[in-house]
């Protein structure tokens, strides 16, 4: 087995039938693998207008050709399906060990179709695959379910599982793997729940051997030398994970605060990575084959109401459950993070939805009769209570479980929902990072930094500094990062090494290393040019999936607040996003018409046929 397995597993949950399908991966190289192959399958096999929670929706787990290969961060997978939160595409990314195990079992992709009559899980041991009853696991939180599953299969197996949030079809439920890792965004867990599929348990024993082992090893050494040199000098990711970022975004005035009413948070020092390190950090938790080890193993011992242990937080959680909800108590944010992981729920959407409810309440749009309690920013215990209720759809939690857009629309104030395509915005107020604003607005999966994180240059100065407040050059930047992320995701790599692999100092894309890695791993013949094209091809095919179900320019938008209300304070004071102008430029660069639809000519150039 080289980088690609050449085999996928298709499980029809309605009938309980399991098929393997074999193919020549070289015939599919134009879409690389992973995310690229998943969108091909959705486009070929599924009507994009299906109800996302119906048996007609397909749920795909996709590894890339570099997943399981010994290259830095070769450990990612994507969960790809139609989103119940956005009705657009869902493609949630996660790393850890589960993806590698799946690859070692011999599969590039798992495809789930239909709906099981009763809760089941699938147990994969290399070529042996069986569906088993999960009735005794239904209702269990993630760590308990995982322990039970390992007990009744193989302690060396790896697990991807949904929690109560997925079972209750919370529109932003996550798929959790390796207990603490999460393919979190836009409701992949709800789709899994709708299929009565509790878990996937995998044991894989076949090593993933590269086609040209020695060449790969040499290149790998070179990349590793670069990365370890960085780490020896001192690395923020290594030392703090992503938890040093609140101070950075706060300094730029883009740390979402009080439901994006401002970008400056007075409590920022209390939720910083330094406090985490001193009080709650236990151990770095690396994914398979990663020298960076950004994962944070943490524990809160007291106070009792925040007690717990687990992994996290990431920056996104500090920003969306922390500052966005006005919480400056780090122990409480950690507890909220543990709860979301145990219940199987996206922290970004959970936090931003609670913040939306608080603002609705404070503006007298949401009556106390509905919420049952007074809602206010900065109330830790209230946030924890709402998270629990949301996951089980208890009382007011039932409304929160629909996400902020449906919540705010119910109270006739959709403008209070900080979403694009009904997906909650992550931890960067785009008024002060305009490239990100364009990325959120045009994303095929709703507001997500993982769609193409132009914050690398706009916020972090990597690989060069881009002025976050200008619109100039941002359409090009957005396209560049979107296409680059499509490549990284499809390969099965982590975006934290993206810049290391993909850019040179002259700001030009440098896909040579990725092309080399892929060629050595798979025995294919990618070049800088073809790899770059593949990214663009994948991105366009994803766009077509949306277009075929009626999405167009009208959906490529942002909350009214981002477009008309100037940032009230800080370095981005007075800024709004000049979206229409950015859209015109972006569509033109992409070869899409003024309505945001890819032109025939563009599709032909990319070799896309529907």
């Amino acid at each position, binding site marked *: 087995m080289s980088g690609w397995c050449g085999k996928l597993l298709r499980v029809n949950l309605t009938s309980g039938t399991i098929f393997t399908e074999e193919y020549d991966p070289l015939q599919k190289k134009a879409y690389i693998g992973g995310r690229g192959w998943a969108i091909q399958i959705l486009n070929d096999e599924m009507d994009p207008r299906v109800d996302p929670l119906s048996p007609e929706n397909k749920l795909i787990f996709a590894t890339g050709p570099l997943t399981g290969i010994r290259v830095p961060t070769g450990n990612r997978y994507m969960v790809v399906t139609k989103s119940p939160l956005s009705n657009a595409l869902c493609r949630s990314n996660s790393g850890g060990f589960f993806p590698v195990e799946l690859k070692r079992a011999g599969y590039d992709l798992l495809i789930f179709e239909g709906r099981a009559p009763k809760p089941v899980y699938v147990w994969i041991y290399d070529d042996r695959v069986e569906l088993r009853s999960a009735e005794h696991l239904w209702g269990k939180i993630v760590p308990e379910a995982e322990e039970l599953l390992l007990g009744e299969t193989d302690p060396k197996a790896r697990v991807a599982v949904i929690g109560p949030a997925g079972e209750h079809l919370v529109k932003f439920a996550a798929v959790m793997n390796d207990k603490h890792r999460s393919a979190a965004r836009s409701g992949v867990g709800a789709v899994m729940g709708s299929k009565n599929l509790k878990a996937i348990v995998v044991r894989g024993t076949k090593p993933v051997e590269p086609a040209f082992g020695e060449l790969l090893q040499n290149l790998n050494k070179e990349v590793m030398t670069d990365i370890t040199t960085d780490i020896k*000098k001192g690395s923020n990711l290594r*030392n703090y994970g992503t938890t*040093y970022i609140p101070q950075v975004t706060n300094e730029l005035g883009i740390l979402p605060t009080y439901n994006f009413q401002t970008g400056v948070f007075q409590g920022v020092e209390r939720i910083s990575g330094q406090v985490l390190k001193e009080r709650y950090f236990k151990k770095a938790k690396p994914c398979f084959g990663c020298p960076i080890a950004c994962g944070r193993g943490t524990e809160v011992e007291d106070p009792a109401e925040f007690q717990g242990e687990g992994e996290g937080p990431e920056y996104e959680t500090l920003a969306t459950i922390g500052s966005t909800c006005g919480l400056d108590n780090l122990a409480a944010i950690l507890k909220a993070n543990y709860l979301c992981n145990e219940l199987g729920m996206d922290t970004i959407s959970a936090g931003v939805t609670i913040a939306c409810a608080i603002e609705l309440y404070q503006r007298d749009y949401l009556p106390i009769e509905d919420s049952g309690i007074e809602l206010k920013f900065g109330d830790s215990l209230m946030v924890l209570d709402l998270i629990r209720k949301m996951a089980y759809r208890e009382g007011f939690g039932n409304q929160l479980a629909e996400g902020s857009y449906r919540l705010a629309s119910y109270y006739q104030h959709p403008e209070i929902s900080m979403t694009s395509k009904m997906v909650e915005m992550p931890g960067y107020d785009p008024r002060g990072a305009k490239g990100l604003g364009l990325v959120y607005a045009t994303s095929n999966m709703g507001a997500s930094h993982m769609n193409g994180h132009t914050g690398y240059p706009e916020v972090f100065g*990597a*690989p060069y500094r881009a002025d976050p407040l200008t619109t100039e050059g941002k359409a090009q930047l957005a396209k560049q990062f979107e296409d680059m992320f499509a490549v990284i995701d499809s390969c099965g790599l982590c975006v934290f090494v993206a810049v*290391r692999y993909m850019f*040179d*100092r002259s700001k030009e894309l440098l896909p*040579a290393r990725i092309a080399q890695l892929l060629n050595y791993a798979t025995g294919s013949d990618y070049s800088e040019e073809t790899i770059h094209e593949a990214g663009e091809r994948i991105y366009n095919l994803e766009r077509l999936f949306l277009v075929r179900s009626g999405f167009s320019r009208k959906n490529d938008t942002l909350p009214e607040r981002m477009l008309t209300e100037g940032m009230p304070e800080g370095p981005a004071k007075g800024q709004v996003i000049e979206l229409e102008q950015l859209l015109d430029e972006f569509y033109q660069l992409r070869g899409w018409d003024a309505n945001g639809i890819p032109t025939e000519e563009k599709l032909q150039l990319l070799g896309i046929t529907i």
Partner: protein
Amino acid sequence: MLITLKLFGIYQKYLPQGAQGSSIVLEVSKSIQVSGVISMVKLPADEQYVVLVNGIGADLDQRLLSGDVVAVFQSIAGGSTGIPSSPNREI
């Protein structure tokens, strides 16, 4: 004149005594450059700095005014510095 210096992430440990959290008020000579402040606190010289003055991106040679807030952190990517070395290109 007085300025405020903020150091984030791995740089925070270079803050002089008397710092509160990530920031400290420093007495500096008039029209000192950002680089002057960086040498005052002995930040390692070989790092990739990202500098903000009052929240706006700035270069190392920018001259400071009384009351300015200077923030310095390390650029990220693949471990840290963000500039990939390439066998084919001079960097």
